[in-house]
């Protein structure tokens, strides 16, 4: 929890990791990819405040105590959601698997939610593995990398019939939340890895599932926003937006937030630190203090403490049925006051009403 100016924030970190990218875990013959991947992540850390930067050696792999301190003791996080990233072609035991996450989560009951993953190209074996992971770790969400290359396949789309089989299975197993990585990825050759059109289709056909587009589709925020306005079950994962822009590029951060608030709305945006790319501490502190820097942004929806409570924790708590102590909940009147200007604004534009541009 975080408290500032008499306001109490319940913090759910909806996107974090516990990885092993140490050289000992690099696959022989693929070292350059394993190295390139983690160095790229490390460069992202460079966009945070200088005092939060780590040397690469620490960044390769951290121990459990460091994670628990950075995220829960210092980082204000109440509940953290693990999003796995396997990359077994480059990392011998995987970069960040469900098992690695789950083992830590078991030691700290109530602190973590362990999401798993699937890949529709895994066929029946993958369906079985999904079932086992859900049973073993109680997963209520999955993280998907649609653009991941594998054995000559250049990724998949959520529109593929095989993907629908998996989505149906996931739903049957009690999975509610589908986190889709649309953003900087592994082998994005000719297929546009950032295309979000497939999420649009799946979201329409699976109205009971929630689709969280991670990194808000960066670098295709415009396509994501336009799609998200039309799908009630599509959400924005803010990992990288806060970490990558809030400190390093405050003006562009304000613009991106303004656009997201307008098109997607504060009820559908969720904080994620992307730890250990960035620590949650400074992100939570800066975000609670954040407002538009000048009048230049006066036609974007306003934000207040209630908006930030939703984005920092209440929205994700809602998607994951996390119990929020009453002192962190929004009073009904506060909620009504904060409203959802983004959604209303877009409806107004659609109807051809006068719009501020």
């Amino acid at each position, binding site marked *: 929890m975080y408290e500032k100016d008499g306001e109490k924030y319940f913090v759910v970190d909806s996107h974090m990791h516990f990885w092993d990218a140490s050289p000992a875990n690099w696959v022989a013959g693929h070292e350059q990819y394993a190295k*390139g991947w983690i160095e790229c992540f490390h*460069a992202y850390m*460079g966009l945070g405040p200088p005092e939060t930067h780590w040397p690469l050696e620490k960044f390769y792999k951290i121990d459990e105590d460091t994670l628990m301190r950075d995220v829960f003791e210092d980082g204000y996080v109440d509940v953290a959601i693990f999003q796995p990233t396997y990359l077994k072609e480059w990392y011998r035991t995987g970069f960040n698997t469900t098992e690695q996450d789950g083992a830590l989560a078991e030691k700290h009951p109530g602190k973590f939610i362990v999401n798993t993953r699937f890949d529709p190209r895994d066929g029946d074996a993958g369906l079985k593995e999904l079932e086992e992971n859900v049973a073993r770790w109680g997963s209520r969400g999955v993280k998907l990398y649609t653009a991941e290359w594998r054995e000559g396949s250049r990724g998949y789309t959520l529109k593929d019939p095989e993907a629908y089989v998996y989505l149906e299975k996931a739903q049957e197993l009690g999975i509610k939340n589908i986190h889709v990585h649309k953003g*900087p990825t592994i082998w994005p050759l000719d297929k546009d890895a950032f295309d979000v059109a497939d999420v649009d289709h799946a979201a329409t056909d699976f109205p009971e599932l929630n689709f969280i587009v991670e990194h808000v589709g960066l*670098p295709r925020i*415009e396509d994501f926003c336009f799609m998200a306005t039309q799908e009630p079950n599509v959400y924005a994962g803010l990992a990288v937006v806060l970490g990558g*822009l809030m400190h390093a*590029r405050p003006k*562009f951060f304000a613009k991106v937030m303004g656009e997201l608030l307008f098109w997607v709305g504060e009820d559908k945006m969720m904080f994620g630190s992307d730890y250990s790319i960035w620590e949650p501490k400074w992100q939570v502190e800066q975000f609670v203090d954040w407002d538009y820097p000048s009048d230049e942004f006066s036609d974007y929806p306003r934000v207040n403490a209630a908006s930030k409570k939703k984005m920092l924790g209440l929205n994700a708590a809602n998607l994951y049925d996390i119990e929020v102590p009453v002192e962190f909940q929004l009073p009904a009147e506060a909620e009504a006051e904060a409203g959802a200007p983004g959604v209303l604004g877009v409806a107004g534009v659609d109807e051809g009403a006068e719009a501020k*541009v």
Partner: protein
Amino acid sequence: MTHESEVLEALGTVRDPELDEPVTALGFVSSCTVSADGDVEVRLRLPTYFCAPNFAFLMVADAFDAVSSVAGVRHAEVVLEDHFASEEINRGVAARAGFVDSFGSLAVAELDTLRSDFVRKAVLAGTDRVCRPLLAAGYTVDELAELALGDAPPSADRTRLQERRAELGLPADLGSPLLVDAVTGEAVGPRALPLHLRRARLTLVNIEANASVCRGMLQHRYQTRGQGEMEEVR
């Protein structure tokens, strides 16, 4: 004899397709050398090891074409450094092979469609750049719908918008409507205009945010300035 400045000027016409900025201004040109005999070597660098290879290929190929066309250049070599697909891209461009040839079965199509999709985004972003000052000056949305491109005051942004529209075969002369659909080229009427302008701004914000992340990553990766690199407007 060819001077480095001429080669850099030619490289200034090569754009990052996603960011719609010259590779020189973005700091992507790490070095550019010209021998007395007109042999040119250009080295390019990108913000990350995993930057999308399709866009990387376009930039290297465009740079090769731009440098080769400079008067007095006998031989041009363009090398992409520190990228997971450097080898394939450098070899493919040097052999003047297309993207499909360079990547074999890994790539199913050439990149023309991808490129034109991004020029359309550049048209939308450019629309915001040109229209925002007009709105700030008091034009209403309805009035904008009546304007021709030439009614916007001359500016670098207007010229750039004209060029991008021309590239796509959209109406681009100063007498054509200020606001056109980036796919059909039809004038955008007053009813559709508020949403069109909202999308234009969103598209520009995306490009700006993306460019600022790329620049931040590049600065982290290389502490040196690129040839012709321009200071970022933050």
